[in-house]
């Protein structure tokens, strides 16, 4: 499975529609496989981000505030969305892997994932 988290610096971006970076992690047997990568988006926009999520075949999205229409769209596409998450993206992903992450969670800890940046086409 793939987890995609909207990113602002190293934290979950406060807004889905304003996010310009995402962190994508591949999860194999409950562990992050390989190096998670950061994708820079051409610009903010919910529609473009939804397209990227579908293109990347992510099965879980971790984000901040998201509008109902886009939330429902992703759910309809059978993608789980954990929204209103605050805190470092790496820790949020770690909690999501262990099924501990809930909507509205405030994740507080220190620790970062090493990421490799690429630009979305």
């Amino acid at each position, binding site marked *: 499975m793939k987890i995609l988290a909207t990113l602002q610096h190293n*934290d*979950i971006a406060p807004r889905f529609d304003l996010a310009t970076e995402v962190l994508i992690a591949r999860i194999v047997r409950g562990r992050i496989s390989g190096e998670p990568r950061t994708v820079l988006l051409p610009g903010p926009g919910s529609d473009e981000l939804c397209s990227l999520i579908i293109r990347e075949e992510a099965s879980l999205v971790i984000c*901040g*505030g998201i509008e109902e229409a886009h939330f429902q769209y992703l759910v309809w596409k059978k993608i789980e969305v954990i929204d209103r998450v605050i805190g470092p993206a790496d820790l949020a992903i770690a909690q999501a892997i262990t099924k501990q992450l809930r909507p509205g969670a*405030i994740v507080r800890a220190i620790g970062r994932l090493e990421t490799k940046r690429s630009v979305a086409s």
Partner: protein
Amino acid sequence: MLETEQTNPFSPDLIDILNGVPHGIALVDQDFRIIMMNRFLEALTGYSGEEASGIYCDQVLHSSFGRNSSVFRQTVETGVSCSAEGDIIGLNRKKIPMRFTVTPIVEPGEGRQAMVLVLEDIAVFQELDRKKELGPAKGLLGHSPKMQEIFELLPVLAHTDSSVLITGETGTGKDLLAEAVHQASKRGKYPFIKVNCGALPESLLESELFGHMRGAFTGAHADKHGMFQLAQGGTIFLTEIGDLPLPLQVKLLTVLDDREFFPLGSQKKVRVDVRLITGTHRNLKQLVQEGKFREDLFFRLNVLRVHLPPLRERVGDVRLLIDHFLQMFATSFKKNVKMLSAPALRLLDSYCYPGNVRELRNIIEYGVNICRGEIIEVEHLPPYVLADVSKASRAIAVTRQSGYIDSGEKLAAQAVSEIPDNVSSWSAIEKTNILAALVQTGGSRTGAAKALGWGRTTLWRKMKEYELA
């Protein structure tokens, strides 16, 4: 003890005071981390003040303003309260437009600075602004009693599914009213299809309205949906219904009664759910008497009838529309035109507008295009307006001689008499303009032509015409 009670009889906690305010309020530090939030903001965000403490405010609020936004930074740098409009995404995943006001406060003694962030829901104001912008009916403007009656009738028309017949002279806004009725109705989210019955020959119109099957006639290479099918769920507006050929009137009547029809060349009935609005500038009753319009169709269409008044009967609306169109075209053409001069306004007030609002719109568009300054003068208006008003004044003079004049004509005559004598004809105005342009450019024909917005040849021809060459 007693003295203390007198000087400070009641000192509630700050948070209790903030909880009583019906706006979101947060106290944030210099880095815009939450120190405390009032209950309203807690409900809005879904986080408690305790949970949110120490977290950057944009993360808690899910706001369009980041902590590095200029509004926040400006407050820190200048120490002056700043506000700006943005939005947040609330607990219910709804985007709420907000006015953010940041006010710096300094702690007495310690000198520590903090910020009070107030979030005011401005959704209602934005909705009001939008409604004000659109008016009672999108694109339809008017303060006159006759238009007010129409605006009052609009919700009634929108609430029902009955056929509406809109009558009125050309250019009175029949199309706009039809669309406004559609938009305000429960069919508003479905298509609004407009068909001009006078624009197409009978055979084409039938195909246009009801569609055809492949091979129904020469050139029908593929199946085509008619406008009735395209308007499924919505509204079809048949304008110039008085021009609908008799054979099609029968078919239309059948559609209205049965809600189904056969497309051209098809053996399969098509069922439609469409509301019909019709419009015409003709007198349908008279057409019925002349045998040009079916009486049964007339009764079927004439369920709800609205008559749009001509502009000359809309007291006070000319000025309102002038201002509206002036602003619209000045913005659209990026011109600095601000107003009309008093004589130009008097001239437009006295004009009879046979083309109604559409004509007034065109006159203002002409004026904004021609005017090179900030004020549209009489000479910037189309020549025919002046000619028509002059003609009207001559007619009034004749009427005066016959001993009868009504109040409207009195006004027109007064307005015309106030137009300066030296602008009595368009030729005179044009001649004056040419001379002024030549003087301005020191006799340079190229410069004068450019100033007048003409080609050199046009200027030369006009100069010859006015014996200036």
